[in-house]
């Protein structure tokens, strides 16, 4: 188990290294000059040169990358912005704020959004899928399957404004979505985020419904489930104690990936409800040619994915005793 974790964490660090290097390179492959944008509209060549120097962009690419990398672990001194303590991801070209600080500020919004949406997704997705599998072929199954297809076909930027118009503006049932820190006002946090949670989960839930249904149907046809029935186990025991155990593995797998994606920023949902999370930060970084911010957001998103991948692998071993963590 320990050696498994050590190896997986080393592997994860390698992946993050590669991702950051590729992102770094790609940014320069794009024919746009961040220094020119930084310099302003009227920009004499000597000023541009100075800006380049101050941003550290007059050095070879791999040296720049090396400085960036070292900054994460040791901090660095930037000509333009001054001291940047570790973990230093640099300063935003656009807003001049430290990248790490900006991400830390935005993270609670993304985390809240992800947390609430995950609960809605898992609860609705799995329960609906279970009902469909229990009543397979019957009207309830057909209703559940059909509504999951409809859910999967909807778009956040369509459902979001529509629901906001009815629930917030017309009926005034819930407040306009925004982020209220949970530490300040838990009830406000809940009510203000309820609509984004629901809207974000609509498209994801459908996946889990279909996955749960098909996995349960498949597991229920397994030999060991027949054995359980032959032992006199009740339908409920067969369903929850035997079949569910096997159906969980693929669900855990896709949930790990979805969770990581959400933590990397739910861009469309954040844009739709003007929530200032990681996703919004990423969009702005792209629009502003903001390399440090873009790299920071990319690395955080990638880190979420590799960490959750390890968590999922560890979970496998808990669900299925045949899986050995070696």
């Amino acid at each position, binding site marked *: 188990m320990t050696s498994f974790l050590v190896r997986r964490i080393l592997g994860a660090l390698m992946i993050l290294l590669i991702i950051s290097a590729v992102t770094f390179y790609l940014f320069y492959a794009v024919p746009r000059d961040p220094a020119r944008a930084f310099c302003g509209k009227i920009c004499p060549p000597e000023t541009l040169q100075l800006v380049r120097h101050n941003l550290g962009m007059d050095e070879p690419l791999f040296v720049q990358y090396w400085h960036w990398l070292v900054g994460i672990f040791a901090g660095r001194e930037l000509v333009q912005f001054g001291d940047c303590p570790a973990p230093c991801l640099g300063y935003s070209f656009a807003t001049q704020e430290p990248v790490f600080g900006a991400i830390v500020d935005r993270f609670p919004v993304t985390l809240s959004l992800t947390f609430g949406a995950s609960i809605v997704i898992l609860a609705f997705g799995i329960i609906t899928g279970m009902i469909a599998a229990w009543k397979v072929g019957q009207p309830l199954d057909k209703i559940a399957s059909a509504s999951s297809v409809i859910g999967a076909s909807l778009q956040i930027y369509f459902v979001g404004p529509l629901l906001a118009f009815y629930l917030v503006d017309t009926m005034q049932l819930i407040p306009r979505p925004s982020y209220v820190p949970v530490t300040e006002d838990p009830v406000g946090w809940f009510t203000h985020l309820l609509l984004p949670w629901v809207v974000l989960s609509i498209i994801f839930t459908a996946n889990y419904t279909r996955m749960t249904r098909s996995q349960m149907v498949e597991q229920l046809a397994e030999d060991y489930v027949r*054995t359980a029935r*032959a032992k*006199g186990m009740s339908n409920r025991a067969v369903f929850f104690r035997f079949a569910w155990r096997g159906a969980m593995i693929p669900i855990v797998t896709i949930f790990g990936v979805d969770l990581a994606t959400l933590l990397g920023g739910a861009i469309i949902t954040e844009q739709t409800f003007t929530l200032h999370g990681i996703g919004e930060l990423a969009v702005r970084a792209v629009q502003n040619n903001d390399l440090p911010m873009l790299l920071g957001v990319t690395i955080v998103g990638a880190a979420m994915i590799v960490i959750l991948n390890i968590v999922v692998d560890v979970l496998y071993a808990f669900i*299925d005793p*045949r899986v050995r963590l070696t």
Partner: protein
Amino acid sequence: MTTVSWSGEPGTSRGPGPFLSVRDLSVEFSTEDGVVHAVDGLSFDLEKGTTLGIVGESGSGKSVTNLAILGLHDPAHTQIGGEIWLEDRELITADRATMEKLRGDRVAMIFQDPLTALSPFHTIGRQIGEVYRKHRGASKKEARDRAVEMLRRVGIPQPEVRVDHYPHEFSGGMRQRAMIAMALVCDPDLLIADEPTTALDVTVQAQILDLLKDLQQQFGTSIILITHDLGVVANTADDVLVMYAGRAAERGTVREVLREPRHPYTWGLLSSMPRLNSSVDVPLKPVRGTPPSLLNPPSGCPFHPRCDYPRLAGPELCFGQRPDVSPETGHGDACYLTLEQKRELRTTQASDQTEAQIDARTEDGA
């Protein structure tokens, strides 16, 4: 609906009879292509403490019959007709709660492939123990002790350690022993073994069959042994039922059926089986053709497309009318040939075989 009595409700009880009695059983599956007549008009009896071997090709309805006894067919796609009496209780019309109480307690089943038939997610001990807990209301501790005892009884070494292992940590033979332990944990009256040795290698096969025999002698369990291996039947069973296309082709004691087989299909089965005492050069004679489609069974005798003797028995009978097993008790078979004709055909067959053996030996000598 909390108590289920075994005395039977009004209208479901009947006088004393065999321990298990299957009467005119039919099992039909509705599929997209039509209705499959997996079992069609099958009757047989099983006495207490004896072993019935059910033999037949794949798709002859052996397993389907036994899943019907346990009520394990999906009711949404299955039509079951006829009667199944376990002592004084009819099982086809029994409700779900009754069947749940019965399964694993009075009637238990072991399956062909113990790797897929055991849950990969639970320890052997838990899988054995939960049957005991369900039917005997035992505590976790009692169930575990019982599981250890059962593992010891079926000859698993170090049962106190093995009880906490998972099926994938057992070898094939050990897994089947664990499966048997699980089936016998509540001392069932009837054990259905569905090809229990097919997935095992030959040396382990013999051990498992011996184990079943020993347990039967100790506890007086009745056993239905489903197999396509006549050798297994010869060693283990008291009675034999040869099934073909969802029906009984022949039934009788082991001695009767294997020594004096009457149905041409049984002849085919016997001559397609290698024997230790015959020369290796005598070619095995498989039953020609393939088993019939049960979606669309042949008219008359279902075996007629593969049979060599319809001309002898009378084509209008063989092609036109389904034969019943006769006589009704004892050694009987479903074929229109007369007993004399069968005896004669057997004698010619046997002499053909002897000739083939002699031929083979002379070739050896040359």
